[in-house]
């Protein structure tokens, strides 16, 4: 990481603390409910994008089925809460586990397929999941929808007043905090030998196998983690929006998440975060131009892919690289 010679800046812990501080300050800067809503959506999208990049950018598996796990998490937790009265956090864990399990199911295909086959298989998985959510009306209410879903229950801390999550700022702290923890966890995974294993599988599966890596097991692992994270995002989505309809989990959602990963920078962890934030905020900021909004969206994705495939991370590195070189040459130039 470029640090301009300042040791503190290269400490990961420093950046994580900075992130936490920024998260803490954001709702104080954006105080109206419209922007606080957008912040929460950002946090949820960050979760989705980072989760996808783990299996896509690091393990190299072409997974287009993220929308399915998103939906499974959302519906599982909501149905448990509304039909069985399950306490929120237990339902949350169940949603995460079930999504993770579904991810493992999909990984059965991943184990045997590569490239575009896996892409279409995962797409097929997403279509089937969507259709089940849509048609199994007796279970999910289908297009009739589930309404009046409550936000997470208030968190009581002894000695302090309970934290109400109907307050948007608090809900943002919850989701963004969870996203940050997930990021830190994945970051540790990626920088550990596990991360190297996944990268090996991504680069050349045959060679990896010849090194004694059990590709099958690690693919299953990557899928499980990725889909579990998506499931968590789904749980937050349901309790945040309050209304659950299957259309929120149509396959186009998978493409949106994919775009966030690509535009941000695939194969890095910070990339999806940047991509998610940009592609969440951009359509909102562009609301003023009405009809052209989605065209601009499509154009940006295409241009990034064509000219800057490493996404914003690559752009960032280019810019900082240039600044760094200028700083160095300035020093060198001014040497006596």
């Amino acid at each position, binding site marked *: 990481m470029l640090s301009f010679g300042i040791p503190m800046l290269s400490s990961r812990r420093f950046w994580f603390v900075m992130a936490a501080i920024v998260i803490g300050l954001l709702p104080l800067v954006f105080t109206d409910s419209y922007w606080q809503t957008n912040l929460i959506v950002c946090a949820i999208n960050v979760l989705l994008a980072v989760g996808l990049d783990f299996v896509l950018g690091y393990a190299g598996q072409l997974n287009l089925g993220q929308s399915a796990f998103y939906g499974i998490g959302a519906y599982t937790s909501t149905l448990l809460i509304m039909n069985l009265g399950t306490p929120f956090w237990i339902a949350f864990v169940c949603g995460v586990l079930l999504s993770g399990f579904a991810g493992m199911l999909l990984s059965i295909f991943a184990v045997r397929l590569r490239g575009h086959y896996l892409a279409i*298989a995962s797409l097929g998985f997403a279509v089937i999941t969507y259709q089940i959510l849509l048609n199994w009306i007796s279970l999910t209410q289908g297009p009739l929808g589930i309404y009046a879903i409550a936000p997470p229950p208030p968190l009581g801390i002894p000695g302090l007043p309970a934290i109400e999550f109907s307050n948007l700022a608090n809900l943002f702290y919850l989701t963004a905090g969870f996203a940050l923890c997930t990021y830190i966890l994945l970051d540790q995974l990626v920088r550990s030998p596990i991360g190297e294993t996944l990268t090996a599988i991504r680069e050349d599966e045959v060679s990896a196998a010849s090194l004694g890596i059990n590709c099958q097991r690690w693919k299953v692992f990557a899928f499980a983690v990725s889909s579990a994270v998506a499931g968590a995002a789904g749980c937050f989505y349901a309790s945040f929006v309050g209304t659950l309809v299957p259309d929120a989990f149509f396959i186009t959602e998978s493409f949106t998440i994919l775009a966030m990963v690509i535009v941000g920078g695939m194969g890095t962890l910070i990339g999806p975060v940047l991509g998610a934030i940009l592609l969440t905020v951009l359509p909102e900021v562009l609301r003023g131009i009405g009809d052209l909004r989605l065209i601009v969206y499509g154009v940006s994705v295409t241009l990034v892919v064509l000219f800057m495939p490493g996404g914003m991370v690559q752009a960032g590195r280019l810019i900082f690289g240039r600044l760094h070189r200028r700083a160095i040459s300035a020093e060198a130039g001014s040497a006596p």
Partner: protein
Amino acid sequence: MLTVILQQGINGVVVGSLYVLVALGLTLIYGVLVQINFAHADIVTLGAFAAYFVTHLLSGNYFAGIAVALVVGGILGWLVNATIFLPLRERGSELLPLIATIGVSIMLQNAMLILLGPIPYAFNTPYSSQVIRFSGIFLTVQNVLIIVVSALTIALLYAFMKFTFLGKALRAVSQDRETAGLMGINPNYVIMLTFVIASALAGMSGAMLGPVLVLTPFAGTTVIVKAFAIVIIGGFGNVEGTIIAGLLVGLIESYTTQFLDPGLIDIVVFALLLLTLAVRPTGLVAEKREENV
């Protein structure tokens, strides 16, 4: 009951033929380039609109509309190849062109939305209201047209691939690009040609689909996901397989509608897809393909 079964069989073949036309383009591109073009759906839509405008507004006849759609499709295919696939070829990533075509697809759809609006256009040809009836079966002249044109197209394509030099060059490039290059075939030229043919097919299928589809800028997307499923079930790059798979999916649609529920069509089709991938990933129709699947 027999009449119903027979009728649904005919319905299935008609719908299946349309799917085959759309899927053929995809499979051709994949065979030669190992790439998926997500904007294929929008070329279908644009072909449908082109045919609509020629037929309805310029009071041309329907066949002129089909011809125009073919040309429009071909031009678009050339454009997509020249601006996206060619420049990205060197980068090596499997995923980037796919994403780029997703971006192109979003652009095209929304541009069409602005220009054409969201209200469905009623594409009626004189053939769609002429109904042929015999022993309890009904068939519109439009349906007959669809089957005839599809069969003709497939036959022509088949002949092209098997008997002409370009067709053989295409197959050579799809089997092994490097060796084909060594043999004096210019892969880039062949790939460009493939794109043009595949997209012309897409445009034409749009013209045939126009009277069948609910014609809005989103029309192509309603058929494209099934087209992907067909391409896989039939085997990527395998023309015979695509035809069989397309007809199969068409029949699945009509029989599922008859005996179960239209809402379950997608589930049945994609369950078949996943089954194929689990059991026989190269597709239902065996082809001698060396591929790291």
